[in-house]
C-alpha cells in the first residue's frame, strides 16, 4: 500500500528512466501501445511507444481511438488486451510423449517464461490479477505455469485519469483508485503546469527502483491534485452495476424470460470470455504425428460459449444459447462468489466493448433488478 509520505514526483524523463532501469534489471517491459486501431499491451522500449496523446471512445460493441489535446501517456481506459495474456498465455505446450518400440518417454517442457514488468496496470486489472491468484494459486492445486510468471512480475500501476464509456469499476469496488498489489503506482498530472507523475511505492522493491530514478519529493498540493483526479474519474464511469445483492438477484432469476431475450441477441462467439481478465478456462488438445511416435499436449483458452466446453457422453450439457449466456453471467457475478469468495467481475467493461453485438452485462442485470422492483411496487 502506497504511503503518501513516500510519494515522489517524476517527469517524463523519469518514466523513460523507469523503463530503462527495469530493462537493465532483466525485465521484459510490457506496456500500453497503439496496435491496429486500439491500445493494447505489448513489449515497449521507451516512452515513445506509449499511446502519447491518444484516448479511446468506447460503447457496446464499439471502440475508436481519438486524439487528445495534450501529450498524456495514460489518458485512456483499458483496451482489448489484458495482462492475462502474459500470466496465463492463450496457448501453452504442456508436454510431449515419445514412443520407441514398447517404451514411452514423457518430455517435459522447459517452461522458463521471461520476467515481466507491467507498466500501466489499472485498478480493475490489479483486482483481476488478485482474482486469478485465487483461482490458480489458492487451494490445493497450484498452477505452476501461472505461478512462475506471476511471482516474477514487477507491477507499475496507474490511477485512472479518465473512465471509459463501458467502465464500471466504481460500482464494483475495484477502482479507479489503485489500492494494493503494485510495486509502484503512478498518477499522471498532465494539465496545470509541467507534465508530471506522482509515484507511490507499494513494496520495498518498488521503493528501491524509485530511488534509481530522478525524482523529487511530492509537494502536498500535487498529492491533493492526484486525489482529485482519481475522484473525478470515479464520478464519470460510463456504466454502473445496479447497487443490489447481485449474486442473490441472479440466484432468484435463473428461469427469467430475459435469458431468452439475450439468447436472441448473443452470437455464442466467446469474445466476452476471451477478453475478460478473470476468465480462466482452458481446454487441452492432443496431437500425434504421422509416424505415430510423438504426441503433443497443448493447453489453450476455452470458453463456456463453445459446445465442446460442456460436452460429456451423449452431448453438450449447455446446448442452448440461453444456458450458455446464463452460465457466463451467473459465473462472473454469482457462483464465482461461492467458488472463490469474490465476484468474478472487476467492472473493466471489456466484455461490453468487445462483444461484437454490444451485449452489456450491467444492462442485463439492470433489467432483472428493475423487473423485481416493479414487482414490489404493484
Amino acid at each position, binding site marked *: 500500500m502506497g504511503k503518501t509520505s513516500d510519494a515522489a514526483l517524476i517527469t517524463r524523463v523519469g518514466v523513460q528512466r523507469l523503463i530503462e532501469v527495469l530493462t537493465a534489471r532483466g525485465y521484459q517491459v510490457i506496456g500500453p501501445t497503439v496496435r*491496429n486501431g486500439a491500445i493494447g499491451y505489448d513489449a515497449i522500449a521507451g516512452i515513445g511507444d506509449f499511446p502519447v496523446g491518444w484516448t479511446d471512445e468506447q460503447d457496446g460493441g464499439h471502440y475508436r481511438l481519438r486524439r487528445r489535446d495534450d501529450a498524456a501517456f495514460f489518458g485512456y481506459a483499458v483496451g482489448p488486451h489484458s495482462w492475462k495474456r502474459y500470466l496465463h498465455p492463450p496457448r501453452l505446450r504442456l508436454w510431449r510423449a515419445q514412443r520407441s518400440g514398447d517404451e514411452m518417454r514423457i518430455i517435459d517442457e522447459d517452461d522458463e517464461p521471461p520476467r515481466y514488468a507491467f507498466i500501466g496496470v489499472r485498478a480493475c486489472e490489479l483486482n483481476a490479477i488478485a482474482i486469478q491468484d485465487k483461482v490458480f494459486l489458492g487451494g490445493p492445486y497450484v498452477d505452476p505455469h501461472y505461478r512462475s510468471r506471476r511471482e516474477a512480475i514487477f507491477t507499475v500501476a496507474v490511477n485512472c485519469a479518465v473512465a471509459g464509456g463501458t467502465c464500471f469499476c466504481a460500482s464494483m469496488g475495484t477502482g479507479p483508485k489503485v489500492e494494493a498489489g503494485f510495486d509502484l503506482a503512478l498518477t499522471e498530472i498532465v494539465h496545470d503546469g509541467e507534465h508530471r507523475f506522482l509515484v507511490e511505492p507499494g513494496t520495498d522493491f518498488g521503493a528501491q527502483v524509485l530511488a534509481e530514478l530522478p525524482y523529487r519529493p511530492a509537494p502536498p498540493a500535487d498529492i491533493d491534485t492526484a486525489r482529485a483526479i482519481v475522484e473525478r474519474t470515479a464520478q464519470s464511469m460510463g456504466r454502473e452495476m445496479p447497487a443490489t445483492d447481485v449474486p442473490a438477484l441472479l440466484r432468484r432469476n435463473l428461469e427469467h424470460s430475459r435469458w431468452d431475450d439475450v439468447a*436472441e441477441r448473443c452470437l455464442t462467439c466467446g469474445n466476452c470470455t476471451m*477478453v475478460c481478465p478473470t476468465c480462466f478456462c482452458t481446454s487441452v488438445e492432443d496431437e500425434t504425428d504421422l509416424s505415430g511416435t510423438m504426441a503433443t499436449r497443448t493447453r489453450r483458452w476455452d470458453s463456456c460459449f463453445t459446445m465442446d466446453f460442456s460436452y460429456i457422453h451423449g452431448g453438450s450439457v449447455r446446448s442452448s444459447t440461453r444456458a450458455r449466456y446464463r452460465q457466463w453471467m451467473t459465473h462472473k457475478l454469482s457462483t464465482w462468489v461461492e467458488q472463490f469468495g469474490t465476484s468474478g467481475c472487476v467492472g473493466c467493461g471489456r466484455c461490453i466493448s468487445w462483444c*461484437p453485438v454490444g451485449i452489456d452485462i450491467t444492462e442485463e442485470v439492470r433489467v432483472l433488478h428493475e423487473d423485481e422492483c416493479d414487482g414490489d411496487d404493484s
Partner: protein
Amino acid sequence: MARRRRKPRLAVWKFASCDGCQLSLLDCEDELLAVADALEIAYFPEASRGEIRGTYDLSLVEGSITTAHDAARIQDVRRRSCRLVTIGACATAGGIQALRNFADVEAFISVVYANRAYIQTLATSTPIADHVGVDFELQGCPINKRQLLEVITAFLSGRRPTIPSHSVCIECKLKGNVCIMVAHGTPCLGPVTHAGCGALCPSYNRGCYGCYGPMETPNTRALSEWLQSLGMTPGDLLRVYRKFYANAAAFRTESKRHDP
C-alpha cells in the same frame, strides 16, 4: 499399440469441385513423404495414375453431387470405404456451385452452352452427406492443410480429430488480434463462422468472408441486425451469406431472409 501389419489404404475422390482441397494434400510438401510412409496412397488421380480396386481404409472425398452419375458413384465409394471423410465447402455443403440451388439451371445452360444436348446435370448441388453416411466433415474453402493432417493423424491413431467447431472469433482472440468489427467498424462474419483458417482475414484487416462455413451454433439473424447497423443493406447481406457456403443450412436460411 502394436506395429501395424499393413499400411492403411488411402483414396482421394473427386466430385464437382475445383481440386483445391485435394491440392492441400499435395501442398503438404514437408509431410508428404511421411503421409506416403504411413498410408498406402491407393487411389489419388490428382497425384498419380491408379485404379479403383477393392476397398479403402480412409477415403477423402472432395466435391459435391451435381449429376445423376455422381449420385450413383458416391454410393460405390461409400461401399468401398471403411472411413469416409468429406473435405471442403463443396463436399460438406455443396460449394459455390450450389448457387444454382437458388436459380434456374436450365436458364444457365441455355446461356453458357451452344448445344444443350450434351449437358446432363441436376438442378441442385448437394453435399455428400445428403447422399451417404459421412464419418467426419472437414470444412473450409479451401481446407487448411494443417487440419487435413490432423484428420489423417487422428485416423491413424484412432482418436477424435481436434477440429474445434467454435467461432473464428476465438482464434482471432487467441492470436491477440484487435477486433476489426469493434475497432474499425469493418463487417465481419467471424462470429458465425467455423474456426480453422486461423482468423486469416481479420489478421489482415479484412472482415471474415465465411469460407469455413457456419460454426456450431451460428446466430446469423442477430449478426445480420448488427451488420445492418454498420451500414449493410439487405442486398449486401444476401451476397455476404450466398458465397462458398451458400447452401449450408444456416447461411441458406439467412440469405433467403434478405432475398427480395
